């Protein structure tokens, strides 16, 4: 006779990760001592170097690239002729927009994953990107000539609101969040595909390219849009990041420590939505950067709380590398970068799921 399994006991909460091992203190005189996570600093420097290499490669590689020896003079001096065209019109804005959008996606993902306490709580999985795409498509169909980016923004916000309402429990329950996100994604995908069918063929190709997320043909307006948003949002994000770290430990403890967990979470969701929507606005719904960047950042330098700066750097590096691949891989001509990130990110998400399941945490 088999013993019956024990009745459902309350699951003990996951052990709280210890606070960051501040590996060193940065001392300024005798009064100021800033804790410094040496590993995080080292990782950041490495990422910056990688990003710089990718950026130089973006500007120099290929038939239309600026020759490497001419790059310093083109960047810091007075670029002329072809170099000026490449720097000002073709690759320059593309690169700057890519760095900004990647950083914005990364920070948005870090915030969302921190709020939902769930590695899957990223804007892609919960329907924000789908909403942005549907918004852009709707604008393209109903008001041709009107900037599609505004439609993307509205669509992203509406999708988030619908997901929030549909879960019934806010963003708290990962399972509900994911199912609601999939529902919203299905809805927005149907709408988007209908629009792609309904518009003219040439317009449909352009729209379809944008809807996959593309950095081709960006201009300085796009670049300044996303960098303006980053300048406003990232400092605010850093301000709440401490409260977010505390609120990851659970609502009761947070309240006991004197922080209002609901207010922190609301602020984080608003900032995250703004950043993700902004990135979608300039670059289209590029898939999975916001899911993977914070994950990679956490692995590179483990610590509790959202790793804002590291996630931003990782996101920017990932996107610039993916865009480099999109420009130079000999598969086909200049496919939208979102196709590459979708394929790679999908595989990564699969790996993540299987791993979480093996641990039994989902």
């Amino acid at each position: 006779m088999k013993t019956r399994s024990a009745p459902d006991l309350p699951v003990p909460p996951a052990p709280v990760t210890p606070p960051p091992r501040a590996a060193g203190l940065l001392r300024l005189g005798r009064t100021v001592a800033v804790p410094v996570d040496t590993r995080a600093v080292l990782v950041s420097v490495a990422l910056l170097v990688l990003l710089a290499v990718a950026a130089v490669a973006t500007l120099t590689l290929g038939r239309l690239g600026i020759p490497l020896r001419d790059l310093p003079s083109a960047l810091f001096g007075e670029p002329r002729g072809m170099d000026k065209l490449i720097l000002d019109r073709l690759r320059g804005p593309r690169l700057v927009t890519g760095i900004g959008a990647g950083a914005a996606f990364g920070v948005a993902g870090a915030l969302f994953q921190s709020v939902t306490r769930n590695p899957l709580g990223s804007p892609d999985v919960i329907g924000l990107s789908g909403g942005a795409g549907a918004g852009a498509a709707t604008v393209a169909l109903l008001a041709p000539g009107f900037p599609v980016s505004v439609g993307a923004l509205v669509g992203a916000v509406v999708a988030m609101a619908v997901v929030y309402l549909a879960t019934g429990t806010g963003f708290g329950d990962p399972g509900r969040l994911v199912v609601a996100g999939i529902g919203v994604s299905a809805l927005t995908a149907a709408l988007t595909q209908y629009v792609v069918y309904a518009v003219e063929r040439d317009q449909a190709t352009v729209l379809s390219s944008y809807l996959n997320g593309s950095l081709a043909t960006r201009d300085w307006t796009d670049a300044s849009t996303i960098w303006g948003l980053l300048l406003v949002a990232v400092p605010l994000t850093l301000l709440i990041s401490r409260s977010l770290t505390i609120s990851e430990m659970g609502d009761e403890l947070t309240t006991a420590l004197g922080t209002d967990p609901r207010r922190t979470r609301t602020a984080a969701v608003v900032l995250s939505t703004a950043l993700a929507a902004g990135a979608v606005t300039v670059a289209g719904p590029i898939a999975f950067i916001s899911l993977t960047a914070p994950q990679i950042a956490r692995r590179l330098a483990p610590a509790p709380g959202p790793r804002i700066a590291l996630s931003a750097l990782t996101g920017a590096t990932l996107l610039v590398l993916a865009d480099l691949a999109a420009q130079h891989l000999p598969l086909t001509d200049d496919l939208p970068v979102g196709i590459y990130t979708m394929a790679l990110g999908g595989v990564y998400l699969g790996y993540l799921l299987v791993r979480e399941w093996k641990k039994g945490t989902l």
Partner: protein
Amino acid sequence: MTTTVRASARGAAPPRAGALRLTLALVGAALLLLCAAAASVMFGSMSTSPGEVLSVLSGDAEPYLTTVVESRYPRTLLGVLAGVCLAVSGTLMQGVTRNPLADPGLLGVNTGAAAGVVTASAFLGASGSASAMWWALPGALLAGVLVHVIGFSGASSSAVRLVLAGAVLTAVLTAYIQAVTLSRPKIFDNYRYWVVGALGGRDFDVLWSVLPFAVAGLLVALLIAPALNALALGDESATSLGANPAVTRALGWGSATVLAAAATAAAGPIAFVGLAVPHVVRGLIGTDHRGQIALSVLVGPVLLLTADVIGRVLLRPQELMVGVVTAFVGAPALLFTLRRMKHSL
């Protein structure tokens, strides 16, 4: 005495009152299906009256009217076929996985079929919708196996897992499909209509090429229905009742995949029909899988034909493809159910 024993050996036998209920539900659904089919023949960019349709059927209508009405026959039959396939596929998937969120669309099987079709037309020069089935099938099978492997690896299991595995698969396959279609403008042009899920603009060829697969899938579904009932009681009870859980699951999942491939080859990837029908059917007649599958055969086409007719009349003279309509009805329904669910997923 003997009858009860034999019935329970085949699985959970429905009580006597259930039989009456099933009969009533079947008759009601059959009537609804007749109405839906009639509406599908009557309405379109040009609407006709019942009398006019009857006159076409009896063969003494004017030629123009005859052409209009007869052009709607393939579409209606295709709707019936795709509806049957999607509904039974969903019922099987939910029965095999005991997962109320299983649906060939959400689990990525339809996208797998779509990827197969796109591959064939892009790289192998396949053209014409009649051959689509031969490419949809391997795509769907591959996707079905993959989602099963991802979804059932590891220790624990939950309703969300399979759906997430489906979402992953859908993402990767969609990237592939987009890459192929965007770099080949001609295929993109054909694909963007088909991918929404539509019944219009097809001919009888598609129907004939898909029919054998649909029938085969349906037969397997009916054959394993008693074993599915046993499976619902848990693996151990199923084994003691003489069912082989592993074989039942493999057959159920396999025929669900074939049916999903048939529907996709015929009408493009359509989501939510396979999700909704089993819920409706369970609400009507309860948990007996034999009854569920029989009733799904009728309810699926009712749902799909109704959605198609709505799509035709809503934006007249343009039309909304049936996949858009099902998504716009199905997704809010899913969200609403989610909101009302009490327990955690």
